[in-house]
């Protein structure tokens, strides 16, 4: 290994393997992600899915504190359920489904128990709109997204942001793929209209 190879390709010029240099990819493990004695799989799942789940839950719930509460619940449920997870669905789909259902639970609970919006309980500034067109557009799309009905919002997020196809999104949402398609279609149309695009 020589200095001619930049750091990111350096597998250890100094003898210490760089943390991000991939060794040959090991054989893919079976779909079943964990067992009772396999905390690695649980940690691995969280590491893989935490960021996308944050992205989803935050946009569904609209508050980062609620996002944290929901994800606490999601991970606890996932951990408890891992031993009985049979790998019938992909781990990601399974985890997303838990997350979506916990969000639904939480929304129903909040509807039953009106409370002071969290935004009003904290002094922290609300996520504002940054200056600049791009940032302003992001602010617009965030507002437009928030205005969508929950089922459409979830569908368009799962498909357009998280990359699920209709079938897998349907598994998560508990609806047929066709229903996902129509929800996504309606959501996109609303968003385009809100952002001044063409129908």
């Amino acid at each position, binding site marked *: 290994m*020589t*200095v*001619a*190879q*930049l*750091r*990111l390709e350096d597998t250890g010029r*100094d*003898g*210490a393997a*760089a*943390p*991000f*240099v991939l*060794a040959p990819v*090991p054989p*893919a493990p079976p779909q079943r992600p964990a067992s009772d004695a396999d*905390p*690695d*799989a649980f*940690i*691995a*799942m*969280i*590491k893989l899915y935490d960021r996308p789940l*944050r*992205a989803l839950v*935050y946009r569904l719930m609209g508050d*980062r*504190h609620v996002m*944290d*509460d929901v*994800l*606490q619940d999601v*991970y*606890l*449920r996932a*951990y408890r*359920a891992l031993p*009985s*997870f*049979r790998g*019938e669905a992909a*781990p*990601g789909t*399974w985890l997303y489904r838990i997350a979506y259902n*916990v969000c639904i*639970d939480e929304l*129903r*609970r909040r509807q039953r128990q009106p409370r002071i919006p969290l935004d009003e309980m904290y002094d922290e500034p609300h*996520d504002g709109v940054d200056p600049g067109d791009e940032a302003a557009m*992001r602010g617009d*799309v*965030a507002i437009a997204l928030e205005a969508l009905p929950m089922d459409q919002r979830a569908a368009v*997020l799962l498909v*357009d*942001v998280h990359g699920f196809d209709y079938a897998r999104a349907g598994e998560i949402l508990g609806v047929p793929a066709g229903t996902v398609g129509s929800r996504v279609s309606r959501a996109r149309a609303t968003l385009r209209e809100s*952002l001044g*695009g*063409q129908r």
Partner: protein
Amino acid sequence: MIRRRRTDESVGALLRSLEVPEHADDFFERLGASLLADDEIPGDRKSDVVDLSVRRDAPARSKRGVRRVMRGATAPAAAVACFALVVGGGLLGRQTVEDRRDRAEVRQRLLSIQPPTAAKTGLRVQFRHSKDGKTVQSYEAVISPNGDYHVSRRSPKLEANYDATTGVRSLFHAPEGVPVLQTGTVPPAGRPDRPTPDSIGLLSRDLGAGVRAIAAEDPAAVSNVTLLGRSAIDYVSTDGGGAYFATQHLVIDSATGISLVVEQRKADGTFARFTYVDALMETALDAAALAPPLPTAQAVAEPNAERTTDLPALAGALAYSPVTPRWAPAGYRLSHVTFAPTLVDVDEQTNPSSADVVSLVYRNGFDSFTVTNRRAVAGSGSARWSDPFLQGNPLVSSSSVGRVAKGALAGVDLQVSVSAVLWPHVWAQRGDVVVTIAGNLTRAELLRVAESLAPYRH
């Protein structure tokens, strides 16, 4: 049709660009505590609308599950359930102990997930690796004051964590969408010859050490610049000898010696660049962030079987008496000692194999230097030693040879190398023992350390 797809795509792009909030600082701590306590789901959200595909014959894993069964049971069934609970108490107890142990482990591991984003004295950096002006990969890293780090790459997905307390490093990626977690210990800092490698390999400082040493000798050879709000040293070298690059443009952070920009251009004009692009040290940086403590585990199994130790423990076990410095620049303290019975770290075609390799690592904040003693194994490889740092690479290393006037190496020829391609270093052979000194030292400091070497006495 095309227009509509474009609009959908642009909306999708906007959706994907939306902010993703970080967790609260204590998120994983809370989660770990909840797992360990095996408590109820936080708050009053107890709905079980989630179909988790739990097998009907799955064993109950919590008191909560038992209670749920009891609530829905008829009186006779409840009695049977109570009996089963009492009779099966032993088994249930064992499960609980194992379960708690698992949960304790998970809790511990969870704490390492959370990037220390809120660390006031931490370091947040973004790196970009580009070729011919096009980004190849970009990384984000967060390093806490105690040396924990979290490195992430968005595409392809990759995450790396390092727990400086335990020395455990985890590499996480998802080939073909299936998450794979690889964990292992990091070899303790202080590999033979080279100074302390940072736990995070991105924070390379060998080139910076060379540039700083060059700047100390010849201030006119470098330019002082400001980059990302940091005082930096700008230097262009041709030390690659043309073999790998024609010129190497370096911008080195003055305070830490970290390479902020490494741009290597070949004669044909192509170039590769590694650069910090954003948020470099946006907060006050604690020196400890780049000089993480060693793992507490003393025995680290690595291919070369190097491990931390101390000199008294080695006394009498070596076939030679290692030399140790009696002088070091102000601020340096012995950090630790490593030992490897044998090593084939050096190119055998160039140099013999090594035995009884002892490295003493000295640290001063971000900076470090290493003094290594090794015994050449007779009959292996070349009979004569050449610069252990070159390892056969055709790099131009501005070196000079002088004779040591004082200390244990008095009368021995010493080769000194200060360049922008390798750690500044000196090396000498005394009989079958080879001594190297390398690190964040100037040429004058290297020589003074070399002259202060004396046989170790227990």
